[in-house]
């Protein structure tokens, strides 16, 4: 098998071989080996957290990752920021006729690696093949099931003026890494996507009994959009401090050339944490112990003023409103 044919999605022998020799073999799950219509999972006495996400990134391989790593990490992070531990994943694939079987193998191996790193199991899946030209190589949908960490409850409604805003590292790496490899761009950069599962970092932070109020991963729309979502309709505002926001030189340079603002560029391995001021130093210390939190820092705080708005204190000391991303044209990045 060197390319994907329509028959690989037809339900017949070829599909069975693909499922057996690629998916079941690579994902290596006892649930999958049963070849049943659904996985039967045991979760006792806990609140279940369930999410789904689809991934259509172009190009499918980019510096620092690929669509497989993204599909596993992104969904795991959606579970984690709720204050939950992810356990099980599904893998729904839509393949384009003619897609390289070798690239498919690479993507599947990458999914398995990311799932293993975050102690999650891929327990069910589905594959469809569409006519050439009707898809774009590979689209992946992953759903995940997790369980809430006992005694943890995160919500915007717990946020109070004075709370600190923390981020676990440099912003904009993912969006720029993907864009730099886009056809017609082909910039020479050393920027790698930050795509990574954050469940270990978040799990550890939440097990320390600190007053974490709320968390969210600033993916599409970037940090600016996520912060706006946090304070939208609330009785508090957020003040960001431009010089505290970690942005790599390479990302800055790329953004300068293209007229982007790093605050609006996508991340896939970042979490914004709103935490009670008194607990914030301890939280930073914990996060910094993890490789995915090495460059963590405070980027702002929750204010009584400017309710519902995000205000940036610029590097030159002036203030401006940071709005949600709207109408800007950024290509497919996740």
């Amino acid at each position, binding site marked *: 098998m060197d390319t994907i044919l329509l028959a690989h999605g037809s339900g017949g022998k070829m599909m069975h071989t693909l499922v057996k020799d690629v998916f079941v073999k690579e994902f290596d799950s006892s649930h999958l080996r049963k070849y049943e219509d659904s996985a039967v999972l045991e979760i006792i006495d806990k609140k279940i957290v369930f999410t789904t996400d689809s991934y259509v990134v172009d190009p499918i391989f980019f510096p620092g990752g690929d669509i497989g790593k993204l599909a596993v990490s992104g969904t795991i992070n959606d579970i984690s920021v709720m204050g939950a531990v992810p356990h099980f994943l599904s893998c729904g694939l839509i393949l384009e006729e003619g897609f390289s079987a070798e690239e498919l193998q690479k993507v599947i191996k990458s999914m398995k690696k990311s799932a293993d790193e975050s102690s999650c199991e891929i327990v069910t899946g589905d594959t469809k093949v569409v006519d050439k030209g009707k898809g774009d190589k590979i689209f992946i949908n992953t759903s995940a099931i997790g369980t809430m960490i006992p005694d943890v409850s995160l919500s915007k409604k717990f946020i109070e003026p004075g709370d600190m805003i923390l981020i676990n590292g440099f912003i904009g790496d993912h969006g720029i890494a993907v864009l730099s490899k886009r056809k017609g*761009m082909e910039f020479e950069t050393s920027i790698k996507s930050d795509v990574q599962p954050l469940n270990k970092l978040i799990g550890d932070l939440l097990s320390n009994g600190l007053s974490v109020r709320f968390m969210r991963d600033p993916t599409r729309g970037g940090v600016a959009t996520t912060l706006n979502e946090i304070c939208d309709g609330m009785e508090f505002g957020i003040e960001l401090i431009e010089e505290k926001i970690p942005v790599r030189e390479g990302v800055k340079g790329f953004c*300068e050339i293209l007229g982007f603002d790093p605050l609006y560029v996508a991340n896939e391995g970042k979490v914004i944490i709103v935490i009670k001021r008194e607990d914030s130093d301890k939280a930073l210390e914990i996060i910094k112990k993890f490789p995915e939190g090495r460059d963590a820092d405070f980027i702002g705080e929750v204010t009584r003023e400017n309710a519902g708005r995000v205000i940036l204190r610029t590097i*030159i*000391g*002036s203030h401006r409103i940071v*709005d949600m991303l*709207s*109408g*800007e*044209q950024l290509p497919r990045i996740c």
Partner: protein
Amino acid sequence: MKYIDEFRDRKVCEQLAKEISNRAIKKDITLMEVCGTHTMAIFRYGIKSFLPSNIALLSGPGCPVCVTPNSEIDKAIAFSRKEEVIITTFGDMFKVPGSRSTLAREKSLGSDIRIVYSPVDALKIAGENPDRIVIFLGIGFETTIPTVAATIKDAKNKKFKNFFVLCCHKLIPPAIKVVLESGEVLIDGFLLPGHVSIITGTGVYKFIAKNYNKGCVVSGFEPVDILQAILMLVKQINEDNYSVENQYTRSVKEEGNLYAKQLMNEVFEPVDSEWRGIGIIPGSGLKLKEKYSQFDANNISVKVEPVEENPECICGEILRGVKTPLDCSLFGVECLPENPKGPCMVSSEGTCAAFYKYGK
């Protein structure tokens, strides 16, 4: 980052602001920033909060997407409906509404419209699709024109038969002249566009100082640049002694970029051109010279529907500095970045987009 951080230095900004406040003695000082990139930078860095209340900054006609009239957008849309045509364009034009549609809408209906980052990529697409007609939408001021000229020259050398340019290019100095002549707004000085001036040099603005007695400073785009340029303008106004000064010396030379200018002159010649909200400005556009006329998209016959203007949209008045987005009944209500009614809301350099994004 070198050459960036120094120009975003808080202390220097504060010092400049202090000096501006001390020196701005005239009761009301109105300055026009001609270029859309200046408008965006002024908002992004909150420059207005550094200025005393007697200095007003007005946005001018320097956003290339914004000044492109419906007639030109309608023509691009008409071309895109031809089955054999591939339209190539900079991203900003994609969502700009014409009389009845946008290129984005036409794409969703099946037109082949591709966003490129350079006209060179458009020529590449023409090479890859020899049985199709590739039309590049030539939008932009002096900053973009040389690369388009170079591409057309390249197309001639390589004997391309399927590459065309719909030339909607515009020139900045004639537009400034119209703003001055109209007398609709009293302007004391101009913050002149840095990027355009890299190509043109500073000499092209002499008439503003000499004939109209207005301050003229070519400015860079960082906060220190803009504040320093404003200070230079204030000094000219105080002394009532006007000349073209160059604040952006690290990029702009008095003579400009001679090679780029020669390329422009070889391929293009001036022609009267329509500007949105302003009308026809003599000698403010460009057309292909006879030697290169084979690449003119106007050689391809196409039926364009009659132009219709949205009577409520005041982009034209905003471009002339007569009104601001806050005077528009559509602004922020019906006209939003995600559903723009006029070009000033679409372009990343548009005044409405800047007001919406940073001001509201």
